[in-house]
């Protein structure tokens, strides 16, 4: 092919090898999303064909040379009703179908494995509960629902995995969630799709989907030593949270054991569920989250803990199913690096201590 310019040739080769018209389907939701997508494409094509046929047909039939005198027609209520009701019906089908998908994508199942993702200018930082940190990458196993809890440290970002057909904005100041279940091992694109400043286009990475075995190996190989909860525990004691949040009778703060997902009554009389977002808010804006029966004395930690720190604390509190751990750390300022993984089994703790203050 000497007569073709080498640049053009290279380009053609590259094009043919890379050319794609449709993204891979690598998650459980992807085929469902694509079904709706193709339904919409079909409807659009039919609609477009109809419009084009009408325009072309009428243009040929009623062009001036063939049809010199126009016939004045007022309109037709029946026809107009037809093209009001049929599109409306189709649009409503798309609305219901789309809404069902939306529910599915933004409602994580109970057994989902949680990974925290912090977005910041201009990188993604993923934190696995086991303490594995990744930057601009996300390793997930096949066949396991994964929930992402997203937050941004600065501006809006948006976590997008086209191959999974999921996307969620990471917002400053609030957790958002999305979930997926990967189906095919491989490496897929991870994009930030919300414009976030100069290096917006560099905020990309890879999502690596692995078989469960490989994933287990990867988890072991990339652990930093401490689990996220352990990091949180260390932070908990270094910030002296346990000075108040302990189980002493004269404790000035409520006990935090089993507080996660519990219904709390606040001093304002409201009842709330202590989810991730609530825990985060209670650390940063405590005065709006005073549990009933306690004095509003907790200082704010706004500006003192990074988002990663808050995540570690939240993860710690989430896993705090007894007061044992808090008691253990009462008088320590620093933990030995290799304490056992999780808090001690609940059975070793007296029942009275397990009581959660509402």
């Amino acid at each position, binding site marked *: 092919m000497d007569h073709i310019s080498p640049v053009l040739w290279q380009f053609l080769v590259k094009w043919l090898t890379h050319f794609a018209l449709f993204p891979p389907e690598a998650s459980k939701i992807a085929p469902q999303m694509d079904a709706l997508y193709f339904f919409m494409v079909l409807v659009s094509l039919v609609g477009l064909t109809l419009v084009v046929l009408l325009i072309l047909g009428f243009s040929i039939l009623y062009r001036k040379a063939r049809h010199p005198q126009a016939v004045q027609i007022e309109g037709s209520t029946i026809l107009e009703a037809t093209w009001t009701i049929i599109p409306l019906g189709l649009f409503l089908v798309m609305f219901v179908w789309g809404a069902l998908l939306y529910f599915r994508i933004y409602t994580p199942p109970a057994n989902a494995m949680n990974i925290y993702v912090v977005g910041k200018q201009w990188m993604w930082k993923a934190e696995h509960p086991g303490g594995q940190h990744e930057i601009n990458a996300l390793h997930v196993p096949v066949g396991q629902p994964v929930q992402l809890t997203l937050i941004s440290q600065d501006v809006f970002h948006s976590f997008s995995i086209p191959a999974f057909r999921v996307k969620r904005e990471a917002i400053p100041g609030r957790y958002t969630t999305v979930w997926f279940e990967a189906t095919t091992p491989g490496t897929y694109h991870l994009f930030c799709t919300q414009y976030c400043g100069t290096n917006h286009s560099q905020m990309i990475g890879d999502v690596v989907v692995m078989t469960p075995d490989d994933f287990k190996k990867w988890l072991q190989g990339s652990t930093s030593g401490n689990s996220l909860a352990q990091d949180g525990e260390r932070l908990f004691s270094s910030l002296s949270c346990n000075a108040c949040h302990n189980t002493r009778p004269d404790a000035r703060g409520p006990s935090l054991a089993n507080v996660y997902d519990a219904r709390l009554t606040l001093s304002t*009389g409201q009842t709330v569920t202590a989810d991730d977002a609530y825990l985060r808010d209670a650390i940063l804006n405590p005065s709006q989250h005073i549990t009933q029966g306690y004095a509003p004395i907790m200082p704010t930690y706004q500006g003192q803990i990074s988002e990663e720190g808050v995540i570690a604390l939240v993860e710690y509190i989430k896993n705090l199913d007894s007061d044992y751990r808090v008691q253990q750390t009462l008088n320590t300022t620093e933990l030995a690096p290799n304490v056992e993984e999780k808090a001690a089994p609940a059975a070793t703790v007296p029942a009275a201590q397990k009581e959660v203050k509402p």
Partner: protein
Amino acid sequence: MSEQNQQHEQEHHIVSPTTYLIILLALLVGTAATVAASFVDLGEWHIAAGFTLFWNPVVALAIATTKMMLVVLFFMHVKYSPKLTKLTVSAGIFMFLVLISMTLTDYMSRAWGRW
């Protein structure tokens, strides 16, 4: 010229100073009432768990709206104005409420949690 003007004045309703004076007094009374009401705890109404309606702001806004209506109807002559003006005023109030209420629906329903 003068003919046209006379015609014009006949169409154009002139509100009497007495009406204005009455409205002025009503507005001043309204102001006194709203200040007085703000110093009294009017209590609250628990509609449902987590939803409490405090009467004080409700009363304050009700008085303010009454005052607004008096100004609009009499000082601004809407009571004597053509339908188009009335429509314009209602459109303004309506869009104002759409902006506030539809934005607030998002904020309120966020507290309902995830499904």
